[in-house]
């Protein structure tokens, strides 16, 4: 019998939105057309469970309807022809092609296909080597990085006052319950202008002009790719951290001012590796909540990153664990576990479970219960009896 490492099973856990959905979510509001190169299934999964804006916003996200014959014969021309025809019908600002498992296996060169579409249509076209085997943060980060490379223009001048871009804002981490607006408002109240938000309530033109900002604020790991590109292209420093409660917000504002001054990157969230209070979720938002809880309540808290990890985030000391078998041991000894409600079955009986719904994990099921922690952390702490 073959002996294998059993790290890919989920007896009862859900799975995070995939990288293909991450691409679609990142680009949803920007006036482009995103094509998932797949047979079927990715489209209904994305727009049922991963995209809360689907019913109300006519974004152009489609599937290529790849067939067995086309895959076997390597018929990329059909994808090109179908996409070009749809571009002519719908006049999008750009085209994005996102890969899925079968194109990965058959070796479709989506970047080359995108170049051909760009030549034929005269609009920017991107090819992303997503394969449905990574989490949404990976796909969204690639999409935002591509925008930073191709769409963002050299700034004529910087803004007069301290300003930022919010990087990594998608409904998969922030839902559609107002957190994105709150983060902007809180920064504005602190005297920091928000040039662009990548990419909710933003236009492609705002993003094109965003290099005039002084600092990038990476509020989820989806924003890391764009931050790295803009650091390289324009020398814009970045701060990593999600506004979460008053004290965390003050730290972020201070860090933004420092980075604007000294040009250094800063990663704010700190996780306490020995803490008995645990937050499970996307790396940056989970670590930020852990950090904020410690600041607000004094309760040592650690985070577990259950989505794709990023090397840039190593200073946070957040372990990455994506499989049920990996996460369960990390919960041993925990007294409190804060996570999406679908994690409840694997939480030890001895631990107190505090549900914190996450669109990227449980989709729409508990959307109405997703709190706005940017401004409502204190109330959430009181409601859940976490205060000391």
């Amino acid at each position, binding site marked *: 019998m073959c002996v294998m490492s059993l790290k890919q099973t989920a007896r009862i856990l859900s*799975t995070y939105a995939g990288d293909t959905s991450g691409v679609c979510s990142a680009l949803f509001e920007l006036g482009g057309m995103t094509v998932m190169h797949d047979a079927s299934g990715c489209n209904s999964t994305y727009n049922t469970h991963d995209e809360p804006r689907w019913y109300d916003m006519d974004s152009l996200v489609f599937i290529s309807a790849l067939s067995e014959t086309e895959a076997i014969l390597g018929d990329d021309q059909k994808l090109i022809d179908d996409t070009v025809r749809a571009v002519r019908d719908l006049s999008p600002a750009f085209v994005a092609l996102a890969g899925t498992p079968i194109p990965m296996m058959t070796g479709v060169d989506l970047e080359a296909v995108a170049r051909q579409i760009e030549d034929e249509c005269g609009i920017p076209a991107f090819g992303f080597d997503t394969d449905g085997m990574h989490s949404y943060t990976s796909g969204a980060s690639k999409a935002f990085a591509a925008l930073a490379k191709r769409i963002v223009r050299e700034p004529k001048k910087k803004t007069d006052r301290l300003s930022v871009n919010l990087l990594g804002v998608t409904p998969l981490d922030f839902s559609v319950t107002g957190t994105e607006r709150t983060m902007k408002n809180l920064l504005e109240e602190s005297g920091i202008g928000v040039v662009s938000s990548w990419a909710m309530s933003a236009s492609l033109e705002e993003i094109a002009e965003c290099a005039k900002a002084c600092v990038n604020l990476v509020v989820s790991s989806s924003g890391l790719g764009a931050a790295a590109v803009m650091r390289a292209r324009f020398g814009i420093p970045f701060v990593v951290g999600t506004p979460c409660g008053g004290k965390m917000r003050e730290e972020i504002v201070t860090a933004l001012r420092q980075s604007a001054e000294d040009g250094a990157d800063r990663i704010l969230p700190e996780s306490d590796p020995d803490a008995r209070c645990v937050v499970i979720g996307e790396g940056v938002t989970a670590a930020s909540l852990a950090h904020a809880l410690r600041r607000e309540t004094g309760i040592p808290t650690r985070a577990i990153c259950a989505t794709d990890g990023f090397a840039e985030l190593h200073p946070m000391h957040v372990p990455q664990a994506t499989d049920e078998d990996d996460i369960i041991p990390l919960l041993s000894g925990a007294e409190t576990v804060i996570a999406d409600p679908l994690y409840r079955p694997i939480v030890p009986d001895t631990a107190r479970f505090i549900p914190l719904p996450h669109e990227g994990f449980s989709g729409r*099921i508990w959307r109405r219960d997703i709190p706005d922690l940017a401004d409502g952390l204190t109330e959430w702490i009181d409601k859940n009896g976490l205060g000391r």
Partner: protein
Amino acid sequence: MIRRLGGDIPVKDVRIADAACPAPFAPGLEFSPPARGTWNIVHTGMLIPEAHEIFVCAEGCLRGVVLTAAEMGASDRFSTVAVRENNVTDGDLEDSLIEGVTDILEKLPKKPPAVLVYTSCIHHFMGADLPHIYKTLRERFPDIDFTDCYMNPIMRKSGLTPDQLMRRQLYSLLHGAPRREKTVLIAGNDFMTDDGGDFPAHLREHGWELCEIQRCKTYAEYQALAGAALCVTNQPAAIPGGKLLSERFGMTHHHLPISFDYGEIEANWKTFCAAAGIPEPDFDSLAERCEDMLTEAKREIGDAPIEIDYTVTSRPLSLALMLIRHGFCVTRIYLDGVSGEEAEDFAALQKRAPDLLLSPTVDPVMRVRPRETREKTLAVGQKAAWFTGSGYFVNLVENGGLYGYEAVRGMAVLMRDAWRTPKDARRLIQIKGMGCASCL
């Protein structure tokens, strides 16, 4: 053309007189409207009592089925094994599946009597040795029945579709059971046949028992299905399941399709009654009751426009033809193809209503087509409700268990009620798997 920022958008509607059959529209990129009431392979598989589903696929593909199970409150009957790049490059799909399923079964608090293992497009393309996989699992867990199920949409145009396979595999776990004469199995439907309909009533009257998977509460009751004497299917996708039951258990299989045409309904009845050796019902009386209901519906709906979509029934053209013959103003049908069962209806509609419009549901331009109508419009089906923006809609998928004359009467009543009282389309049509449990 529709005016839109950035240019004009072509209209893809086609008059039925000018449309090609069976493919009225050119293939291309596809849009997915947010109408989710039709069942998927998770919902259908859950019809087997006490069975556990294990999906083996890339995480991005698992997401939709995991959350289908979660929304229907069935996460405890559902597990997954993720396929990752290392499995593809290492070529260990068989071992990872076998060990993954073993790991899950050993962790379950109670061993299920049956496990549905769903493999994916990746297994197909990599040539995974499926017989070896199932043989090994059966050897390891001799007390568990395993069956092969498929989430391989890339095969939807090659051989049996995933939907056909799923409806067939529902019966693949049957072992065989003592013959129960005067028992008919209606196979391959998502919905249980309406007990109040003519068909169940006529069966009961003549000493026949109707059995269906939806009526089984335990795995033992499910096993007893194999003893039925007759098997009837009425969805096109259920035919392979009917053939399987005929071949394995000697049931006499009749495909008696859903129809809204009295002649076809009567012919189906006659076929069944001859096979069962029971008298035929009074067809004139049954048709008369339909006429009464249709007259009442027509009196209320009048000449208002009606738009129908293909998810409401497997016979949208038959439904449209029946309504037009009864004076209703059917103006549009949303569909992407014409099934073989509807070829005659298509031809009849070309003659009877040449200006009837056919509209695609998946064409990209349908994403930005204005979702409003100039006047109060009756939508029949969830996709029609979405495309028309009308709250006056019949909220039904796959005939909802209505069959025969009962389907004609039921549709007339549903249309009348839909016309009287608007519904919250936004809330209702986004719920997955109409009729299944849902936490939304």
